[in-house]
């Protein structure tokens, strides 16, 4: 159970991994291409099914996040404060604009046709990538946040922004002038990751203290009282009578079943069924912390970034690696409850 070296069941390891910590990875919405951003100042494009490195872009600083635009281009958020557009076919990149501090996260909204970035300069910026180069043309708006932005997630026209200080702002992309909802995280510790449910009804939020909260957008009495909202503990270990709690770095929802995988600093990836409140599967342990997770568009592949996230500062650690595993339906398909106790 605590095998350090991953057995072959952990999936296929991609060749040419980044040389430093992996900050994020994402599957394309159209193919099995995988975009990976890293602290080694690079963004890499892999063909996950063919296990080929398709392209590499070097940046001025560590890259903290990346996302696809379409299959031919993507965007990246860098610690050198820039937001860049990457054109894969030409290996070309241009700068969409700049924040006043490192840019932590980036999302592309197909609904709004905009790039949304969150930065440690306590602001959110929306960009129109179609505009001509130059910040005046591309910047759509800047929206101040109560704290440094740590995580973003989009579903439809909804945007969830998680910041330091456990703030959670929910926006409607069509009206960004102010948050639709201002919330506080229901978890007591720093937010690590926020991801919206694929059905658009709510979001899951993970903290540094081995816990994940399930929340809903609908604030009406009916839905809030239905006890769908809850938090659960995960990524913990009992050792010598003490609980060791690990941060939950990553959440990835299965695009079809709505179940989700979480990855923690304990090197485990767990798959959960949020509706039935069940853990469906635990994959065997990866060499080091799980930094990022992504399901492919059809949910048949799961990309796992096993990469030390510096939770214990600079120390010797296992090499950074990307595993792509094929997902068995049994691992992600929700199971009905064992006893007939339908939720109210």
């Amino acid at each position, binding site marked *: 159970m605590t095998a350090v070296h991953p057995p072959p069941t952990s999936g296929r390891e991609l060749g040419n991994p980044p040389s430093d910590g992996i900050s994020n990875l994402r599957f394309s919405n159209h193919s099995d291409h995988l975009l990976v951003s890293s602290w080694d100042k690079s963004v890499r494009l892999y063909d996950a099914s063919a296990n080929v490195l398709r392209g590499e872009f070097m940046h001025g600083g560590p890259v903290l996040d990346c996302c696809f635009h379409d299959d031919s281009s993507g965007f990246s958020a860098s610690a050198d404060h820039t937001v860049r557009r990457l054109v894969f076919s030409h290996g070309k990149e241009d700068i969409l604009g700049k924040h006043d501090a490192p840019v932590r996260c980036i999302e592309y909204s197909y609904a709004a046709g905009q790039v949304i970035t969150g930065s440690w300069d306590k602001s959110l910026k929306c960009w129109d990538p179609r505009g001509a180069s130059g910040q005046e043309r591309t910047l759509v708006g800047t929206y101040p946040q109560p704290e440094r932005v740590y995580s973003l997630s989009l579903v439809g026209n909804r945007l969830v922004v998680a910041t330091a200080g456990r703030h959670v702002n929910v926006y409607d992309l069509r009206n960004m002038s102010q948050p639709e909802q201002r919330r506080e995280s229901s978890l007591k510790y720093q937010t690590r990751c926020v991801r919206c449910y694929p059905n658009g009804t709510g979001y899951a939020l993970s903290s540094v203290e081995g816990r994940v909260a399930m929340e809903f957008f609908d604030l009406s009495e009916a839905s809030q009282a239905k006890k769908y909202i809850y938090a659960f503990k995960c990524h913990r270990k009992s050792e010598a009578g003490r609980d060791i709690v690990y941060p939950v770095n990553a959440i990835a929802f299965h695009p079809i079943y709505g179940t989700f995988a979480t990855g923690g600093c304990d090197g485990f990836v767990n798959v959960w069924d949020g509706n039935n409140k069940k853990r469906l*599967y*635990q994959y065997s342990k990866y060499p080091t912390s799980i930094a990022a997770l992504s399901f492919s568009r059809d949910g048949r592949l799961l990309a796992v970034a096993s990469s030390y996230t510096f939770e214990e500062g600079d120390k010797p650690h296992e090499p950074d690696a990307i595993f792509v595993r094929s997902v068995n339906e049994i691992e992600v398909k929700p199971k009905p409850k064992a006893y007939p106790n339908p939720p109210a």
Partner: protein
Amino acid sequence: MLNHHPNEFARLETTCGSLLCELQKIWDEVGESDNERDKMILEIEQECLAVYGRKIDDAKISRAQLLRAIALSEAEVADICSTLGEQPGHCDWTAGGNLRDKLKTITPLLEDMRQRKIDRKNQFLQVLNQLQIISNEICPKDNMYKIIEDEADLSEQRLKELRSQLAYLQEEKSSRLRKVMKHLSNVNSLCMVLGLDFKDTVCKIHPTLNDPKASKDVSNDTIEKMATTIQSLQEVKIQRMQKLQHLATSLVELWNLMDTPLEEQEMFHNITSKIAALEPEITEPNFLSMNNIKYVEGEVSRLEQLKSSKMKELVLKKKLELAEILRKMHTVTETVGDFSIEAIESGSMDFMDLLEQIDLQIAKAKEEASSRKEILEKVEKWFTAREEESWLEEYNRDDNRYNAGRGSHLSLKRAEKARVLVNKIPAMVEALTCKVTAWEKETGTEFSYDGVRLISMLEDYSCMRQEKELERQRQKDHRKLQVQLIAEQEAIYGSKPSPSKSGRKTSTTLTGIASNRKLSLGGVMLQNLKPEKEALCVHSNKKIDGLYRNSPFGRPQSVSLAAGSGRRNSEIPGNVVNKSCSSVAAKARKVESKSARKPLSPVSLAISSKANIANFLEDKKRTHNGTSLKAVPSVAVTPSKQIVACNEGNKAPNTMPSVPKTPSTFTAPMLMAMTPATPCVSLGAKANERTGDKIEYSFEEVRAGFICPSKVQF
């Protein structure tokens, strides 16, 4: 000749005579016979004759030669004269003396003529050459001025003709050149306006046109091509101009529609100013370039989008307005949902239609609202009266209501007013019923209030009131019976339980719809939170509770005891009350009350399983030790309200103590108990130690060495 040399002849005569004499002498000396002498002299005579004859022949030949030369020269002169188209009249040499003189006069003339011919020929050649060059330039394909090789006609007249032709062609050429230049400038201006590459365009017509130094090509072909190019460019220009003007028109329309700020408009003023311009008026460079058109198109589409989004907004606003009116009218708001943005986006509906429809509905709704207004006012009055009624009822239940306390005089006053109001209710209901029936008759529809028919509400209320009346009667009887019972008990045991003071409050009041309607989320939360808070203090009571339950007393007593803490008990979820007898739970409670619990941390969860409690206690202990709590990134801890919603754990009887760590497909329930956070040993410790203040940092920020600037401000 003989004239010229008479002396010589004379001398010759003498010489001949002397020679003859000498010969005579010699003969005499020799004694030559006369015969011989005659023979000899005849011989000499014959030889002399032969010599003469030869000389004459020679002279004849030379004369014939001279004659021939003269004739040839004359013929050539005549020929040249005719070639040059001149009269050979002035050659009057027939009068002149001998042949040599003739020849002498004629030779220079011939030379002169020849020279003139050569000159003339050169002139012709020159002119012809020029002609050829020009005609070549003008029309390279069929050259009509081939160099004329035959020299038959070199006349002045022809030269003049050719010269005039040349002049004409030169004139033609220069006019063509002017034309070409004009075309070129036309093309240039068109290209500028259309944003095309002039050089490229011109090069396509003819490469020489582009070169400023080289002479321009002026052939028919080029001019024709230029004309067609200009034509086509003109067409393109007109086409684009129409397009641009069309765009400009829509731009202006959109501006007017949306009150676009001036500074945004200014960028396109140069375009909109040409909205009605004619084709020749548009000369601004790049004005009709594809880029410019695309730019304007982009702006138009941007504005279109803006417009559609504004329209959407407007529709939504209207929808909201409609919903608001309907809500105010207390009508069921199903009708609002008819128009959806999706319908527009899919193109099945037009914005204008939609707006019109909504406006229509709003107008209708307003109309209806005005007709309902009177009744609604009355209904509101009725509702306030009912609220007062229910308040009064509750107030009446409070046995301590007459105890002097803060605000009790206000309650008294209110009760007084309420009683008056309550007495008016039946009349109110009566009047309302009348009005509503009248309205319904008038309009032919049911008068519904929030989806419920008002008449039926009124009827319900009447029924309820009657029931209440009966209930009151029953209670009176019951009280009588109770008093009687107590009296009996007293007679048996000699003791008398103290009358319950506040127990009555719990039973449901008659509020019915009225009070439920006012319930808000906050209210629910409060109700849920309160019992938990109070549950702490109740523990001891509950144990007693349990004891009393076992007592052999009859129902009434236990009822009254339960009522002693009933206000709280009744609101605690049933399962908690049920479990309260179990020893585990009791123990849990004890432990719990010992440990210093934070206010508002949920009680019910702690009961969910013994394991969890143990866990919880351990956590707690560690917290108290204070060794590792600091390690967690410090966050101001405010317990969230949603904790309440996590009671789910209670329902799941098969909650497992921990998640099994072996990889398996075994489904394990999640650990959802909201125990206080377990502090973890190492995470984030570094960040905290380094900064030493309240600012939290994520791992990434620590790694990137990012320092939050706000720290400086503090």
